């Protein structure tokens, strides 16, 4: 414990590096595609070219500049990841808090609903959504968000349960505060820290799931790219054009690592632990780290 606290104070070189990767990446993802648009090769042979002059990271399998594609892909992946995380936060918190505040019977029913949803194979849901509505960024983040809110609902509910017995809430209610008021004024601020931490843990997981779906051919529709579609392209050409996988897989890995570390740091700053209070049962319900292996 003493060790881990030591690292959290001040700006260490690593903290600075993390900041640079996360913020720099985000900026590049937002503005990069405008500055460096990717184009189809005009020539007869749409070939993957190795890194060199002209193309810093080489070209993809249709002859487009890999760096430009990476920036595009990063934008998609980041957007999908953030949007899905936000969606999950909103649904999960509201649902969980509602269950936590509702009577025991409604609570039981609502949580049984979460159990049922968690027992459905995630892929089935996505395949259905994709085949019903076609492939799009919107659908992708909705699908990912719809799965990711389930464990969050547990976090929120557990948080509410823990807080419900607190004397000051009792006091607030006695003073005539409505349920909504109690929620807004007392519960959400209390839940803020664990949920923020949970969100930073979830973002990399959602990004990984996006990559996984793209790998299975269920990602965004071309010509849009995501890190997942680029990695899938790279895996298919691992022998003849390894730079595609190297740059796409490498940048995804770098970002995920940065996010993980950032999440850890945030948890420490906010003094939230995986093992304390609200988060305890969550990890049981589906700590999403294992998500990418879930069928």
């Amino acid at each position, binding site marked *: 414990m003493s060790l881990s606290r030591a690292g959290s104070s001040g700006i260490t070189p690593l903290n600075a590096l993390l900041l640079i990767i996360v913020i720099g990446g985000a900026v590049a993802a937002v503005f990069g595609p405008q500055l460096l648009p990717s184009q189809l090769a005009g020539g*007869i042979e749409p070939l993957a070219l190795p890194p060199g002059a002209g193309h810093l990271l080489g070209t993809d399998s249709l002859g487009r500049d890999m760096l430009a594609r990476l920036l595009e892909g990063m934008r998609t992946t980041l957007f999908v990841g953030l949007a899905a995380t936000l969606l999950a936060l909103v649904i999960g918190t509201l649902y969980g808090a509602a269950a936590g505040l509702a009577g025991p019977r409604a609570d039981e029913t609502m949580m049984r609903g979460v159990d049922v949803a968690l027992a459905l194979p995630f892929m089935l849901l996505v395949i259905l959504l994709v085949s019903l509505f076609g492939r799009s960024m919107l659908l992708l983040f909705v699908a990912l968000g719809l799965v990711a809110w389930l464990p969050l609902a547990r976090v929120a509910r557990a948080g509410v349960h823990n807080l419900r017995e607190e004397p000051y809430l009792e006091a607030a209610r006695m003073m005539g505060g409505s349920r909504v008021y109690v929620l807004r004024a007392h519960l959400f601020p209390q839940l803020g820290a664990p949920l923020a931490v949970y969100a930073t843990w979830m973002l990399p997981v959602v990004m990984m799931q996006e990559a996984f779906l793209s790998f299975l051919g269920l990602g965004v529709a071309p010509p849009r790219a995501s890190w997942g579609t680029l990695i899938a392209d790279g895996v298919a050409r691992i022998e003849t054009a390894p730079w595609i996988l190297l740059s796409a897989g490498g940048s995804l890995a770098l970002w995920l690592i940065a996010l993980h570390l950032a999440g850890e740091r945030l948890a420490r700053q906010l003094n939230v632990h995986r093992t304390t209070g609200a988060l305890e049962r969550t990890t049981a319900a589906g700590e999403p780290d294992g998500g990418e292996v879930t069928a």
Partner: protein
Amino acid sequence: MICSRPTACVIAAILLAWTAGCGSGEEHTGYVGRARPPDRPLLRIAQGGDPAGLDPTRYSDQPSWRVARLLFEGLLAFTSEGRTTAGVADGWSSNSEATIFTFQLRPEAQWSDGRPVTAEDFVFAWRRVLDPKFGAETAEGLYIIKGARQINSGKADPHSLGVRALTERVLEVELEHPDPEFPIRTALPSFFPLPPEHVAARYLDWPGGLDPVCNGPFVLDRWLPDDRLIVRRSETYWNREAIELESVVLFPLADPNTTINLYRAGEIDWTTANTIPMDQARELLRRGAPEVHVSSVYATYYLELNTVREPTNDPRVRRALELTVPRESIAEGIYGMGHRPSRVLVSTNLPDWTAPEVPAGDSETARRLLAEAGYPGGDGLQPLVYLYNAGGPHGAVAEFLQGAWQQQLGVRLELIPMDFASMEERGRRGDFHLLRSSWLADLPAPVEFLAVFQAGNPNNLTGWEDREYDRLLEQARHVLDPGERNRLLRTAEERLLNDAPIIPILHYATVQLIKPYVEGLTPNPLDVIGWAGLRVNLEWRPPR
């Protein structure tokens, strides 16, 4: 807490290990991976999936057909070059109109339980395929036999089928319309015989289980679904002397990279048509590796255009699109393994076939046509909806067309990748402008392609119909002279292409890897294989 140094070290180690792998020794030896024959006459084949089942007559997927041809044999069979040869029948003849055929069965043909193969076995099997209760997806293949369509639609008794066992060893077949090439059809698995005494008891289901009674060059040894299927040489096959392989193992490998990895590791001797990654195939081809075998096939990649919906209902729009397809780039750049860019539907490598002329024109003509249709420079056009089944290079082709048409015509595409079932459903609803499609002919005949666009064919999603076209095809079916028949069919194809309900892009080719010690295996356009004479040279060693 300086994490970055060890992190960097580990990344560096991984990269090093990987790049070390990139400079493989293959360039020097000339072989693709390990080239060492197995220790006994055994052929290990990678095919793209597991067979749907063992019943030879019921399925139409390529793995099932390959297994069917190992275990069973029809009236005619294929040689390793893909030509037909005598199978269970050792002679056949027809009346002068080519509507009634008589097959003589060879007396030495027998089932694996020792009983001779009789004409009744064929009658039984064909009636079963057409029985509506059986619900075989292959039934259409037998519609050429008199009465077959009525029987399959439940409107006639199966016994009214135009097939008779004149004696134990003489089979007579009556056709709906003349077809001098009918005997070739009987080499297709849906025409294979079955032993009634083993099948009749559980008529609807395949009763063979783990030890089906069969009449082909091999018998089933064991089938571990999703893992491997093993057959061993039959002791009862009439031509068993010509079968040199002791056993054949088929692996259902769905992943192309896995397939080539196992081939490199020497655990696979033959990768069947297009089961390895395209980029590696192209690379090996460029290097001139002798194990890479390219063969053209009778198959065409084309786009279907919705001729009912705006704006593709205007032939000028369709022709403008057709004229500006970057076929060379797609065939060479995306495929590039013997794929032939083409503007016609019927595969140009069919024997004795000459492709029709397609109206010439360049991108200038295309822009003019588009302007005439009311969309100069693509003005006033909504993006065209382009459906394709995700997977393989279809996405790359779509993206390439999107770029080319935008650039040349100002026409934009909305690309919609889907899974096959969804695409088919949406295509059938007519909710598209362009739809990716392809056609693979089971037999080397032009009408196999052209019939797709005859009225009522379920494979035609374009909404295009032409009475004259239908008439030409029907007329050609009744003409016996091949030259005259081809002339009629060519006229029909010309009509089709002039109206452009489809945009042909290329004719497919197959790439297969065959180990140097496998002899007598010739990739061919029908992608069939005769097992007689195929051998594994156990003595083979790489020359020094």
